[in-house]
């Protein structure tokens, strides 16, 4: 089954000094259960591509389909709902909400979806256990956690609403190599249990965990 399909997607940024083509005629598809990495030099358009897949950004031309449904023309509220229910984001800088504890960060997307607090708490704890966060760290604020721990919490948060795809933009970019490995092991384990995962990375070692690698150069898919 196809989870993501891009058809001739182009993204152009209009700048005062001419326009920048961040993505140039990109067509691709990702099936359910795939583990895909996107590689390429800095500025090649990796983040732009991931953000368009994640419905955070819209292409200048071309079409995006998520789960077979066309995304263009959806309202802001509809896109938000789509992200809430079908996407899980993992960022390079973890981006946990600093006023919430680790557990609350994981609960938040569930509460947004209208789940009852009790249930959200239960599932939140379960998810933190599943990503291997030490019991007891759930009540800690992000600032009291290490980078690796924060990224585990972020992955648990991404899993909160049982999304169709996990999108990770350089999830190991701010971690040392040992921690990077353990995070990739975690993602691999999730993929083995059926999660569809797309990872943007510079690191060939990270890419080596994935089943398939897409290469971007100057906004074009190569190879």
């Amino acid at each position, binding site marked *: 089954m196809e989870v993501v399909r891009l058809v001739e997607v182009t993204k152009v940024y209009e700048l005062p000094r001419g326009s920048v083509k961040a993505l140039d005629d990109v067509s691709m598809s990702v099936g359910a259960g795939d583990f895909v990495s996107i590689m390429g030099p800095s500025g090649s358009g990796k983040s732009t591509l991931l953000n368009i897949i994640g419905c955070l950004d819209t292409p200048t031309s071309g079409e995006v389909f998520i789960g077979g449904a066309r995304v263009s023309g959806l309202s802001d509220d509809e896109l*938000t*709902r789509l992200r*809430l*229910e079908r996407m899980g*984001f993992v960022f390079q800088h973890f*981006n946990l*909400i600093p006023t919430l504890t680790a557990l609350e960060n994981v609960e938040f*997307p569930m509460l*947004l979806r209208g789940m009852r607090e009790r249930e959200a708490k239960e599932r939140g704890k379960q998810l933190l256990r599943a990503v291997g966060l030490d019991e007891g760290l759930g009540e800690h604020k992000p600032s009291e956690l290490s980078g690796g721990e924060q990224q585990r919490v972020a992955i648990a948060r991404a899993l909160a609403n049982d999304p169709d795809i996990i999108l990770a933009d350089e999830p190991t970019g701010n971690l040392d190599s040992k921690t990077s490995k353990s995070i990739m092991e975690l993602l691999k384990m999730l993929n083995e249990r059926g999660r569809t995962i797309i990872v943007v990375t510079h690191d060939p070692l990270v890419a080596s965990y994935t089943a398939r690698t897409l290469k971007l150069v100057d906004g074009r898919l190569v190879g």
Partner: protein
Amino acid sequence: MSIFFEFARRNLGRHKFRSVLAVVGIVIGVLALTALGILGNSIRLSVTEQLYLVGNELVVFPHGEPLISEKNFKTLERVADAIPVNSQADRAVLGSETGAVMIYGMRATDLPKLLDIADGQFFKHGSLNCVVGASLAAEYDLRVGERIIIREQKPRIVGILKERGIGFDINPDNAIIISEKLFSTLYEPEGYDFVIVRVEDIDKVEAVKEEIENRLNKKEEVVSVMEMKMIVESLKEFFRMVSVFLLGIGSISLAVAGVSILNVMMMSTVERTKEIGVMRAIGTSRRGILLMFLYESLILGAVGGVLGAMLGFGVGYLIDVWILGKASYLFTPSSVAYVFVGIAFGVGTSVFSGLYPAWRASRLKPIEALRFE
């Protein structure tokens, strides 16, 4: 959604000092508004309480001549219920003392129309007795049955009047009222000092006034007619202006507080741009972001408003005691209402000031907000 309220609460806790300053601004504004509102209201209550005002009275004074002639009075009587009054300041022996006092000469039949008895009764037509005002009786410790001495006359006090307050017609509280006959004996007036005209229907006051002027001031102006209704109205207008002025001063300080809330909220939205981007990315709607910021300004306004209104009530108490010498006007509904007016304006100002920042935050594009460092 209560999660956004919880967010708001925690976000305010992140910058405690800044939040406290913003609240202090609202507190000062609401305090000023409440205290000044209460002051204005108390002044109005205290003045109107001391004034005796009836809207349906006209007072006709002589113009050009010292007195209103008997003939002109007869004309007035034909227009409406006319009460002739003579007045004279004189010295009188009151109890064991001698004092200067206002003496009114009035017809016995007119007394019940204008005055109330506290003790004893009114004098009869043509009587040589008198009634005295409440304040005068209290000052000189006068009692019913006692005699007072005015020149060679010794009228007996048959009644003590109820307190009435300062009026624009007569001021009986500090006066002695004697019959027309006794007044003539004492001072031999050739007319009346003024005539009080009572109009049954308050809406006909202007018409009666015009009628009087038409009849008496036909050739030349011999009387001037003072309209109590107009005085009542201009007094009301005056106190409305005082209240508006005081509330205006209060509102200015509240407006300053509003600007500081706006400033604080703008700072928060900029500082938290990235966080807003994250919240939006993982599925928070625009409405959620809007609510979060509105709750923040609501909390600031509610805390500041309640504190400010309570302090304002306290300060209102102190001002009332200091300026008016008593606090009894403080617990009237119209004064207490300013506590709620203060809270409402505090919350309103704060939420209003938060509207724009909240709207702006909710309109941030998730992708751009996320990229913000």
